[in-house]
């Protein structure tokens, strides 16, 4: 394989020792970056370079590196998961950038996402929203019903599946000018609201999850649509409208 010309990149990376300290952008130069490497591979190379000079490596979240775990985050050049559409940071390739470009790398910013260190934020607020109502109760006493025994309209099943592809990465929160978790929350509500199994707890689910999101400090939805554009899984705004409908009917009829 012919050797490709490496890229020279200037990085402005957010460095912050811990949640209490004040962070700042720090500038790094990294040369000979393969255009085919992923953004995280480039970050790995940067950390090698920093460690070689006895520095403290940049801490960032990652796990599966194939776009399904929702671990990686990073606000890259003013957008969550960078400039490419429908990909997470781990699937973002350096060829999306220009040789000699300056790239800003910041943590996802929200009151509900406190910085732990450098680019790592605590996203457990999303877990707590899920715990508040994002589940169904199934009898597992030994004679569990087959879920496929209930006929479900194909279109609805597809929509529920689309909503369930949300990986909970928090890009919607990071992109939203109000740090709202509406897209995440509405996907988690919709995946059940569309299915018969989800009807039993439907009312309490939407009320509890919305309440939890507010307690966590996520903002209101301004319908800017930024979340839908930036979502690596293409979760639709239609889900937010469904959540609004679910919430309206639940509020009007709850005791």
């Amino acid at each position, binding site marked *: 394989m012919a050797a490709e010309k490496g890229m020279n990149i200037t990085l402005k990376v957010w460095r912050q020792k811990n949640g209490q300290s004040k962070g700042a952008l720090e500038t790094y130069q990294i040369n000979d970056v393969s255009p085919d490497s992923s953004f995280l591979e480039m970050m790995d190379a940067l950390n090698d370079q920093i460690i070689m000079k006895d520095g403290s490596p940049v801490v960032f979240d990652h796990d599966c590196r194939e776009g399904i775990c929702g671990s990686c985050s990073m606000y890259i050049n003013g957008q969550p998961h960078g400039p490419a559409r429908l990909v997470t940071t781990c699937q973002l390739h350096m060829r999306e950038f220009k040789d000699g470009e300056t790239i800003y790398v910041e943590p996802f910013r929200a009151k509900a996402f406190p910085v732990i260190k450098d680019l790592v934020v605590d996203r457990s607020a999303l877990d707590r929203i899920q715990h508040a109502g994002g589940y169904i109760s199934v009898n597992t006493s030994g004679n569990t019903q087959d879920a496929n025994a209930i006929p479900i309209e194909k279109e609805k099943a597809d929509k529920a599946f689309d909503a369930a592809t949300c990986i909970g990465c928090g890009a919607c929160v990071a992109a939203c000018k109000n740090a709202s978790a509406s897209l995440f929350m509405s996907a988690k509500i919709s995946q059940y609201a569309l299915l018969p199994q989800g009807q039993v707890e439907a009312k309490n689910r939407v009320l509890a999850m919305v309440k939890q999101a507010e307690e966590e400090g996520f903002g209101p939805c301004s*319908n800017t649509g930024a979340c839908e554009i930036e979502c690596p899984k293409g979760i639709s705004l239609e889900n937010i409208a469904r959540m609004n409908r679910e919430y309206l009917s639940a509020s009007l009829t709850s005791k």
Partner: protein
Amino acid sequence: MSESRGLLKSHIVKKYWMAFTGLFLILFLTGHLAGNLQLFMSGYAGQLQFNEYAVFMTTNPAVKLLSYVTYLSIIFHAIDGMMISIANKKARPISYAYSRPEKNSIWSSRNMGVLGTIILVYIVVHMQNFWYVYKFGSTPFMMNEAGNAPLLQDGTAVAGGLIENGSVFLNGENVGVAMKDLHTIVVDGFTNPILVGFYVLAMIALGFHLVHGFSSAFQSLGLNHPKYNPIIRKVGYAYAIVVPAIFALIPVYMFFM
């Protein structure tokens, strides 16, 4: 947060109210614009038409009721909007050093609070310009075409009548309420180029507010359907351009006439 209930119990409920009052105010704008079109009528006929319309708008009980609902809607929309804006800001105390919001959303959608504030200031100025002067200020009164007899609110000319404290007196007897001449106040007001410029600017702000607000209201109320979304978006854009443009045209037209 405690177990809050009632009118503003959550962000989503606040958004329902924004949408609900916003859509009502869109209906109001349509009616207001239809009335204003009478200002394009020229001559004495136009002046009389507009002043008779002003009497109808201030005396008809149904219109009065609607006007109170409109005032309430404006106040509620503004206060609710401020509360939402504060919650928006609180949710991200530390902003990004480098952000490209134009990559994922339109400018209007991110600046509804600023646009709304401009419109609110405009409404206060506009109410002072015409509503306050018409109700409480010293207004001229409407005369018949020959200019020798004052008109009553129902349009009848009282030959030899004298106007005192807003009423027409004939031989010392009160024969009815005199018709005020709002048309002349409007014509005089729009001889001021600064006022005309301010009105035009406010209507541009209104246009941008509606570009996002119109379709956003439907989404907030949960009305999102692939069949109707394109219609809502297109009607919203058309409304946001056409209605403020005609509103803005009126002071400009009157300035140059």
